[in-house]
């Protein structure tokens, strides 16, 4: 039986089969395509989702973002954790 995924710093997030990140050139935006679903990503969400490659842990993604955007790590961790948990609950992220 499937169980709910809980996102922690050690989770290694990635897009599961059936979920695709792509650029929508007609509307000039990034979208996640999933079963009967379409999510438009804002620039922050895109930076996070782009890094969910099935290799990097949440902790590593947060370190990378904190360095790239020169922002406090704890703030980024909270935002990233919330976004990824929400995506996992929608079954469009695996970890």
């Amino acid at each position: 039986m499937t169980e709910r995924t809980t996102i922690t710093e050690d989770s290694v997030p990635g897009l599961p089969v059936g979920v695709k990140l792509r650029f929508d050139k007609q509307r000039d935006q990034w979208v996640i395509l999933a079963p009967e679903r379409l999510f438009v990503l804002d620039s922050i969400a895109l930076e996070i989702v782009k890094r969910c490659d099935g290799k990097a842990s949440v902790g590593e993604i947060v370190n990378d973002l904190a360095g790239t955007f020169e922002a406090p790590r704890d703030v980024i961790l909270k935002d990233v954790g919330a976004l990824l948990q929400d995506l996992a609950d929608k079954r469009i992220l695996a970890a």
Partner: protein
Amino acid sequence: MTELNFPLAILAELTHRCPLQCPYCSNPLALEASSAELSTGQWKAVIKEAAELGVLQIHFSGGEPTARRDLEDLVAASAAEGLYTNLITAGVLLSKERLAALAEAGLDHLQLSFQDSEAAGCDRIGNYKGGFEKKLDCARWVKEIGLPLTLNMVVHRQNLEHLEEMLALAEKLEAQRVEIAHVQYYGWAYLNRASLMPTRAQLERATEIVEAARARLKGVMVIDYVVPDYYARRPKSCMGGWGRQFLNISPAGKVLPCHAAESITSLTFDRVTDRSLRDIWENSEAFKAYRGTDWMPEPCRSCERKEIDWGGCRCQAFALTGEAGNVDPACGKSPVHEAMQALATAESAKDETAFHYRTRKAGEAAAEKVPEPLA
């Protein structure tokens, strides 16, 4: 001003042939013959045009889309255009080998229908003996191959008592997602309305069951729930607005704003074989007829929800009032809203269980059996 968007999704009804005969089928009563179906090459041209028009998702449907032997080709052509590909199937014609070939061709997701939670009801509603067992096989193979699975379950008076078992079945088959959709009453379902309409008590119980299951299965299985218009107070945002996000192509290439649009007999629909998809989307009379808000009558025109629900459903307005431009009777502001609810209550209390099954012959004979509009 009417804003013109690019369509997001296309429903490709590859054929009206289907081994099942569900009495709420979304196809029109007048089913198209296999001899009229678009060729592989014509469908491939449509797929290319759709991608160029901004479509991101293609849903292969029917009838039963797997009755077309070129489905793999069409999936591959769509994947090559970068489209997200979804197969909507009854599952009874599929083998594990064919599923693997479809996955190999680039299929992203599969939606499998179940008509009930157990064989007797499932096979009776679809009028297809042995269907339930075949569907279980299909679901198992889908998981073995590693494709994401949604179960589609259409609910009505004659199967709602099994709703908890249907959700349990979806859980057991490890579906990522399940759609619990109350019947919407157009075409075949409109013809069979007296045998399908749930009671208000059934509806309320169903909503409770779905809410409890959503809480219990959070993060495990996504549950989409479509409520029946006849008991609603506000109309649904049908197709996200007429000609705004969605287009449907019939087996013979007619381009429709929704799968039920042909029930509006006052409209005529262009074909992909006669005009480009872009030209039809942008300029055809049928798409322009109810796009945006300019067509709206009062009280829609001054309603604060007009760009939320886009006036609800034109097919329903036509079926129940005889005029597609009228207020959707699902809206509490419609003059026939109360009559519609009274009709639902009265029909739900009937002990009618027989179906007009979906066959070409029954469709031809249906004209005089279709219920009259309310007003």
